């Protein structure tokens, strides 16, 4: 599964907490410090892991080189970095290809949900759609206009062709 299922701000916030702990800290300690339940943090941990921004090693969260590089960048730099990571990874790439190849760069929300149901039947299509919009917008890969219900490749994504 390579579609992050946590808010962007939570994932980057987690990395910043990790950096405050010099790049390595026990997961339970993070939860304790932030007065959060483990279940509240795990989606951010999983998402950061699949974006290669942190590693988990016997209960410890460890910031990776990619994670450190991301934190060192400004807002645009972070977007560019995640743009590359997401555009080249598993399901997210498949979704971009679906929009690009079959639909000339634009699909409706319903078409996207049909695609998800067909190809990723284990996922909740509605919720996954929202995560795709969240990360697609942040990384400048996708644009979504609720006025017409269309999701499309942004210029930043199409130029890479």
């Amino acid at each position, binding site marked *: 599964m390579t579609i992050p299922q946590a*808010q*962007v*701000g*939570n994932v*980057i*916030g*987690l990395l*910043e*907490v990790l950096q*405050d*702990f010099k790049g390595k800290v026990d997961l339970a300690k993070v939860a304790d410090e*932030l*007065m*959060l339940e483990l279940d*509240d*943090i795990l989606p*951010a941990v999983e998402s950061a892991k699949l974006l290669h921004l942190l590693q988990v090693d016997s209960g410890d969260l460890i910031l990776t080189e990619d994670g450190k590089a991301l934190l060192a960048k*400004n*807002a*645009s730099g*972070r*977007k560019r970095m995640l743009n590359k990571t997401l555009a080249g990874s598993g399901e997210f790439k498949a979704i971009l290809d679906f929009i690009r190849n079959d639909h000339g760069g634009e699909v409706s929300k319903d078409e996207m949900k049909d695609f998800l149901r067909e190809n990723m039947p284990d996922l909740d299509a509605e919720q996954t759609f929202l995560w795709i*919009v*969240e990360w*697609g*917008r*942040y*990384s*400048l890969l996708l*644009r*979504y*206009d*609720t*006025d017409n219900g269309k999701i499309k490749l*942004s210029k930043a994504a199409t130029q890479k062709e």
Partner: protein
Amino acid sequence: MAAGSDSPKLVELRGVTKAYGPMSPRPQVVLEHINLAVRQHEFVSIVGPSGCGKSTLLRIMMGLAKPEDGEVFYHDHKLTGVCEAMSMVFQTFALFPWLNVVENVELGLEGKPFPKEEKRKRSLDAIRVIGLEGYEEAYPRELSGGMKQRVGLARAMVSEPEILLMDEPFSALDPLTSTHLREEVLHLWADPALPPEAVVMVTHNVEEAVYMSDRIVVLTSRPGTIAREVPIEIPRPRDPRSPEIYRLVDEITGMIV
């Protein structure tokens, strides 16, 4: 870029007293005889027990509320209306649900003498700086709390305010998101190319105040008076887990409770 005591005063409250129901037999005095100056290049936080008038003080500073006694000076001139050189970020974001991100940001330029295209251009610039690029056409209901507050920040920054006022800007956000957004605000603050010249933040979170500020103003409980002013001279960037920070947090918390 901490301010020295010789940096010019941007805004100053002199003998400000604020009461609710001043004509009633028992007026509620919320702020009493506040003398406070904010200087160029200064990040000032106002902390104090709840109900001490912190937010009211911010509103008086901007000219949104009038004090019963005392005056507000902006660059040594008496402020008579709402100060155009300040803008405010609110705890609850205060976005218009029927406007998308770029339209909400453009509201920060309402009344400014720019043509429509210029307003759009400036709004898009602010959106990029605040890390909202890609969300231009999103509506507030589609955004997480952190992204909503970025819209609030972009709307406040788009007019290039000289003084940015923030009223509990992070307290409606979850802990991970607020950590992230605090860092972003400090990044913006550290960039000398960007406005504002000074920040005044109201918060009940003492750790946040110590971590972010050059000076902390501690108010007493109602009626709010200035109990202490504590300069925070720890060099930036700061380590939120350093013993100096812990010591100051303990010291200031002790003054409040």
